[in-house]
């Protein structure tokens, strides 16, 4: 909204400050001036205002002048106009309010023999030409400009009709089903029975408080005019405007509450401007009011305001004096409130509210006005005392432990969009029937709430690879959604995606491509942060019911902790990779951290470290191709030899060429080679050779049963 300081000063001739100072003082009191444009000598400045929606009363020149008067303690000039004698009218113009729930007041003024023409500066207080030029407001005709002038001056919407096109009189009513109205924007509209209209005795003339009608608009031929200035109920106007996709100055004001008493004043202003070009007033102002709305606007019950409450809410001021009774009165009176001392309480008032401030309804609203005008920055900075505990989110520690693993494995944290396409959701949802759609999505690609972090992760990984960033390691911790449109479940999930090399830069060692077992290592380390009894990895047995179609069927694993699926990971299916134009293998995975978090974090406990020397033995094994390491691993575990404290694969050779060159020629190509390292140690003694021999024999025996044998 644009405001002229020249216009403001016409209401406050004694304003003692510069435009710049005025802008700052207004801004500090919530009437924000966002920009100041110097219009040259004698023209003052143009203020670009940003006024909060609750302060419609200040979205005009007079309203801002009132704020300035309050700040500087000045007298605001009343709105007065040159006013010719009325010519008595034999038949008063007929106005009826049928929709009393939606129209509180309707004033109509008949002007006869007015001359349409160009606007000029008509009289002091109606400098239409000057102000419009400075505001770069387009001039249309004296009649239309008059209503715009009243709007800019005092924020009251008015409307002018060509009186001769009105049949009978005015009725404010709801539209009839199927009724049609061509509005001023030239659009033919079919009205809804809920629409509020200003009608004559035959037809609707305009959408009440929103936009006038084409039929009755002012033309150069118009000679007789009806000036409307009314008060409409906010919701009725809002609904009408919404239904027709309209948002006009008038609807903006009425939706937020207009001044019940402004109608006659605005009507007078518009009429005076029109009459300045000739013509006469026919009869008195017709002013129809609904008593119920009067009591809810201009005759509202006074509010009690106690100084103690002002202090309880606002606290200390810098000057130590605090907010005094004088300060309260000094703020509220110039704003238009009437304060009388409350007879029942000391330092309390009964406050009568001004008609233009429908946003003031409660004691707290008045306290806010006191604080606002007194100046927020004159209050002290104090810190409230506190004696209590501080709690983190219940999963904060688990989350942070997990983050540490991923960060130290070289994964960058990413955040992706909350939405994905229905197709992506169908592919990745753990429960495909439970994808939740948006009612008003930003686009089709973002039509549903993500059921999995995978679509976003794949998008980000692909984005990097397409940008020629070859090494990608990302994780995202975020909410995923499932359910119905009645009830949406949210849970926290973790996804990670990677491609390119492992997270190590060295000038001395060759880079190595990241593969399945690198990701598995990360997963294992994440799992190791939690209290589990058993963890295993498998290949999505059919009975589990989840077979992620976007994963490579032989290079992917399901993660099971304590019998519960807690995630999966693997190489992206080559078909999916091709769909996304990815040439190199990409690894991806997801961990259901809500399940993991329920297990609780691992609690480290110290064990006695044996003083006795450990004995390490390596076994070079030949193993059947279809014997997985896990089989050997479990076989060794089943031995339950307390002194067998550690065993691990040191190396695996699967390269078929090795059979011929380095390794035992007696083996077949359906076998592979595995170097197993085991450690024996006792807590209480040095192990003797005989004991070791027994242990070793048992190890070899177990391996044999598992499908392996010692290399010859």
């Amino acid at each position, binding site marked *: 909204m644009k405001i002229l300081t020249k216009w403001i000063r016409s209401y406050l001739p004694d304003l003692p400050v510069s435009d710049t100072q005025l802008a700052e003082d207004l801004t500090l009191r919530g009437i924000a001036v966002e920009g100041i444009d110097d219009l040259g000598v004698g023209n003052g400045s143009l203020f670009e205002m940003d006024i909060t929606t609750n302060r419609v009363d200040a979205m005009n020149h007079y309203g801002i002048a009132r704020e300035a008067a309050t700040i500087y303690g000045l007298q605001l000039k009343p709105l007065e106009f040159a006013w010719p004698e009325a010519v008595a009218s034999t038949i008063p113009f007929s106005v009826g309010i049928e929709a009393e729930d939606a129209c509180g007041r309707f004033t109509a003024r008949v002007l006869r023999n007015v001359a349409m023409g160009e606007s000029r500066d008509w009289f002091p207080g109606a400098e239409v030409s000057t102000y419009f030029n400075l505001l770069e407001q387009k001039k249309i005709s004296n009649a239309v400009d008059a209503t715009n002038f009243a709007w800019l001056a005092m924020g009251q919407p008015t409307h002018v009709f060509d009186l001769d096109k009105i049949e009978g009189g005015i009725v404010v009513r709801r539209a009839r089903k199927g009724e049609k109205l061509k509005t001023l924007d030239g659009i033919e509209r079919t009205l809804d029975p809920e629409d509020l209209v200003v009608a004559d005795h035959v037809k609707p003339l305009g959408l009440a408080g929103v936009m006038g009608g084409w039929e009755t608009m002012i033309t150069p031929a118009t000679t007789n005019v009806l000036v409307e200035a009314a008060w409409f109920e906010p919701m009725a106007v809002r609904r009408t405007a919404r239904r027709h996709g309209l948002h006009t100055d008038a609807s903006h004001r009425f939706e937020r509450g207009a001044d019940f008493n402004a109608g006659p004043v605005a009507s007078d202003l518009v009429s005076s401007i029109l009459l300045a070009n000739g013509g006469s007033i026919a009869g008195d102002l017709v002013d129809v009011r609904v008593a119920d709305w009067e009591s809810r606007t201009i005759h509202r019950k006074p509010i009690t305001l106690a100084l103690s409450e002002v202090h309880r*809410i606002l606290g200390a001021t810098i000057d130590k004096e605090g907010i005094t009774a004088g300060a309260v009165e000094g703020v509220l009176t110039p704003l238009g409130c009437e304060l009388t001392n409350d007879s029942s309480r000391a330092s309390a008032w009964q406050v009568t509210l001004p008609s233009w401030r429908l946003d003031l309804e409660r004691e707290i609203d008045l306290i806010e006005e006191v604080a*606002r005008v007194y100046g927020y920055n004159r209050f*002290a900075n104090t810190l409230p005392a506190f004696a209590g505990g501080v709690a983190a989110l219940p999963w904060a520690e688990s989350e942070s432990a997990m983050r540490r693993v991923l960060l130290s494995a070289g994964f960058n944290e990413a955040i992706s969009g909350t939405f994905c396409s229905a197709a992506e959701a169908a592919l990745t949802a753990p429960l495909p029937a439970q994808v939740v759609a948006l009612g008003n999505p930003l686009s089709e690609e973002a039509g549903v709430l993500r059921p999995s972090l995978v679509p976003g992760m794949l998008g980000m990984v692909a984005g990097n690879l397409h940008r020629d960033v070859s090494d990608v390691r*990302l994780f995202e911790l975020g909410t995923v959604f499932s359910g119905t449109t009645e009830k949406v479940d949210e849970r926290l999930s973790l996804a990670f995606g990677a491609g390119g090399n492992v997270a*190590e830069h*060295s000038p001395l060692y060759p880079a190595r491509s990241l593969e399945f077992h690198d990701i598995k290592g990360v997963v294992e380390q994440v799992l190791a942060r939690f209290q589990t009894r058993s963890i295993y990895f498998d290949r999505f047995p059919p009975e589990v019911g989840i077979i992620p179609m976007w994963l490579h069927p032989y290079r992917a694993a399901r993660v099971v902790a304590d019998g519960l699926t807690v995630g999966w990971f693997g190489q992206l299916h080559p078909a999916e990779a091709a769909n996304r134009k990815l040439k190199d293998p990409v690894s991806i995975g997801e961990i259901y951290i809500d399940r993991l978090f329920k297990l609780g974090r691992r609690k480290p406990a110290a064990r006695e470290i044996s003083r006795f020397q450990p004995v390490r033995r390596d076994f070079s094994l030949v193993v059947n191709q279809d014997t997985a390491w896990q089989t050997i691993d479990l076989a060794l575990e089943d031995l339950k030899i307390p002194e067998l404290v550690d065993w691990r694969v040191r190396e695996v050779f699967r390269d078929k060429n090795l059979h011929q060159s380095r390794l035992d020629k007696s083996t077949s190509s359906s076998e592979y080679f595995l170097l197993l390292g085991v450690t024996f140690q006792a807590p209480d003694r040095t192990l003797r050779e005989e004991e070791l021999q027994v242990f070793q024999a048992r190890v070899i025996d177990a391996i044999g049963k598992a499908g392996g044998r010692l290399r010859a």
Partner: protein
Amino acid sequence: MTNVDIPNLTAFDEAALEQAFAALAKEASDDAAALTNPAAVEAFRLQWLGRKQGRLNEVSARWLKAAPSEAKKSLGQRFNALKKHVEELLEAGAGAGSTWSDSALAAEAIDITLPGTQRLLGAEHPITRTLNEITQVFAALGYSVGGGPEVETDYYNFECMNFPPGHPARDTQDTLVIANQERRPLRDRLLLRTHTSPVQMRTMESQPPPVRIIIPGKVHRNDAQDATHSPIFHQVEGLCVDTNITFSDLKGTLDHAMKALFGSSVKTRFFPSFFPFTEPSADVQISCIFCGGKGCRKCKQSGWIELLGCGMVDPAVFAFAAQKQPAYDPRKISGFAFGMGVERIAMMKYGISEIGQFYAGDMRFLGQFA
């Protein structure tokens, strides 16, 4: 150093023995002469005196055992002499080799200017980082951390935050809604929360005052993406409720927090604003962290940067809370709430120009925050 196996002796006469032992003694002397560092000395010791594969062991094993009994005495004496000789060599060599010669070390030179081998560390997202900084500042002031759902009901997102149905203030928050809600009562309709403020109500409903809570979270609006707008963004919401919480407490708390976040020389100032759920409401500006308040491009020459919204909790909000927790009686308690946009703070702190960079997962962007 030679490492030739000890050959078997074919003759055990004095001449043959003399020659064989002299050869070994010379060999040992030659080896010892080449000793330049302690590692070589140790290798010499193992080569000659090693318990398992030392050469003297070999001599003992091959020659002494094979020798006819008449030669054993002589051979034994010669053997002991050789052993003594080697031990003396070792002793002498140990001295000579105890200091590492510079030339020997120079031969092991490496290029120390080559970059080190780095295990790359991942980077926390700048939003997470900023969220954590903010929560830590408030944790030190006694604030616990809370959370709430991203899909909310109309009641929590709007109604109990004092946005009545049909209120124009709802227009300012373009809301993404869940499909097929039209038939449900307005208050139950599901939407993506447009602010973290609903968690204020969820917190108050779950516990009586006093409350001090900070709520980091993700919110959504039906906003097209541009340099500073995104349909997704993050907020940190704060709520403090107790007896005698005042507007000056709100000012002091936020002034303290801004100094903790941006440096002790930062100043704050408060402007009246409007939020349905607070009254009085304020916008907070901090003195420009780039120019110190003198005016620069970043602060549009104003010297100030707008950072957050706040206010005293509206009594109407307390009235909603009191439906479940009667202790939220607005006549007895008071409180303040505040909310800040995390992206805006992160963009300012790290000099990020496009909000979209936060959500693109670009390694080159994210890697900068390691």
